[in-house]
């Protein structure tokens, strides 16, 4: 079988290996600007990974020198000219399902950010569970510069991560956030030299794999839910429901036994 011509290289790469679904934005010549094909393909891949027992975690990355420059403005401009582009419809159809799929999948999603993460690209990074940055990473929120509001979940996630004042300053004034600032304000988890980015993600995934999968899954769900919980009472009740379920699992029994016997636990995901 002949390889497709170079010009038709896939816009994102998808590979499952050793329990990790690796999704790589693959338009380095355009700083991985997001197209409809990429967004829908990524959302689909994430959703399917949720049902695929061979996938235990997702690693998201961008090929080349930038993580992602956001929406493909060339594509937007062209489609606005021929009248086939509507901002609201585009978000509902392509961007929002991807953001929701990442927040909803009950498996860890770790992203590696180098260079620029701008606009919806920053939103995409922000939507991931854990973020590892190269020292040159930079989050840019340039929506206001073109007369728009931050989208793809940015207005939901950013104030929760940064607090309202810093979020507003970042969004209003399009003030970039450097990797170090992102680290000190709790926006990302780690900053490493660019050469160590992949290794750092791998190390993080290895540590996640040592945790019982149901704990990972339900902890993510419970923390997600806490952002919208009506009250402490409501969330306490939710914790009780999950704990009642987890308390009957084999992995809980194994974890307790291993702790008491002072040996490493062997979890099976049951």
């Amino acid at each position: 079988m002949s390889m497709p011509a170079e010009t038709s290289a896939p816009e994102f790469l998808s590979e499952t290996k050793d329990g990790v679904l690796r999704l790589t934005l693959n338009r380095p010549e355009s700083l991985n600007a997001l197209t409809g094909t990429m967004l829908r393909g990524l959302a689909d891949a994430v959703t399917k990974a949720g049902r695929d027992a061979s996938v235990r975690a997702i690693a998201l990355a961008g090929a080349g020198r930038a993580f992602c420059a956001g929406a493909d403005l060339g594509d937007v401009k062209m489609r606005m000219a021929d009248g086939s582009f509507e901002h609201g419809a585009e978000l509902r159809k392509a961007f929002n399902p991807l953001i929701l799929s990442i927040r909803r999948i009950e498996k860890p999603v770790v992203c590696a950010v180098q260079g620029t993460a701008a606009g919806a690209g920053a939103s995409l990074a922000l939507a991931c569970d854990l973020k590892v940055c190269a020292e040159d990473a930079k989050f840019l929120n340039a929506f206001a510069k073109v007369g728009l509001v931050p989208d793809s979940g940015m207005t939901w996630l950013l104030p929760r991560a940064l607090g309202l004042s810093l979020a507003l300053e970042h969004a209003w004034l399009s003030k970039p956030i450097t990797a170090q600032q992102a680290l000190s304000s709790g926006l990302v988890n780690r900053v490493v030299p660019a050469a160590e980015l992949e290794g750092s993600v791998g190390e993080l995934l290895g540590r996640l794999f040592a945790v019982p999968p149901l704990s990972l899954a339900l902890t993510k769900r419970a923390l997600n839910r806490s952002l919208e919980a009506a009250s402490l009472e409501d969330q306490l009740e939710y914790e009780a429901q999950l704990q009642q379920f987890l308390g009957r699992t084999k992995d809980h029994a194994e974890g307790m036994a291993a702790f008491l016997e002072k040996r490493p636990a062997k979890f099976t995901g049951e």
Partner: protein
Amino acid sequence: MPAAESAAEVLVERDGAVAVLTLNRPKALNALSVPVMKALAAALESAETDEAVRAIVLAGSPRAFAAGADIGEMKDLAGSGEAEAALSEHLARWDKVGRCPKPTIAAVSGFALGGGCELALACDLIVASETAVFGQPEVQIGVIPGAGGTQRLTKAVGKALAMDMVLTGRRLTAREALAAGLVSRVVAPEALLDEAKGLARRIAELAPLAVRAAKAAAAAAADRQLDAGLARERGLFYRLFDTADQKEGMRAFAEKRPPLFKGK
């Protein structure tokens, strides 16, 4: 046929004074076909006549409580007469759930659409998992709810939201359903059966005659003029089988393509 799907259509489990009836066609998303509803009606009748049963839980599968009626059984019905002849006994099984004298609790996880939503609505109360989705999408395939949806939904959530749902097929999430009063509790999917059974057990421990009276009295408010409304709904439902749009809608659904309605 896969082994799981060749087992009984409805599983019956007894837990003290609580009977749990579980729709057991998970791969078909518990489509409420004639055999499934027959099995459900039979199981319900046993639970009703068994004096030791004080409360009944009706459950589905994690992905679907019930995703609707079996459209395949209806799509080729030639007209209103044939539809009524073919479906009246079938639809009466939903009415039977609504008339059950013992407290009924629907435990809804995943899809409760069309006939599935109507089945949940026919129960006294609904406990939902966070994954629950409620909707009456019939209008999208050229018909209307025919098993009580237009009546019970309007009473449950009020006119505006019910109209929004039956006129557009809009779906409600568990949280929206809770806010609208369609369900009384929302819990984690893992906790759904515990919650529903716990609720049924609490009811079962109370004075049986008082429970029966409380149910009858509350039903007198909730179900006021229900029979006339159900008759009106069913008449309108059957008449839509005289239309070309019903045929187009159901065929398009079966063929997984968008329908082309002509108003005929």
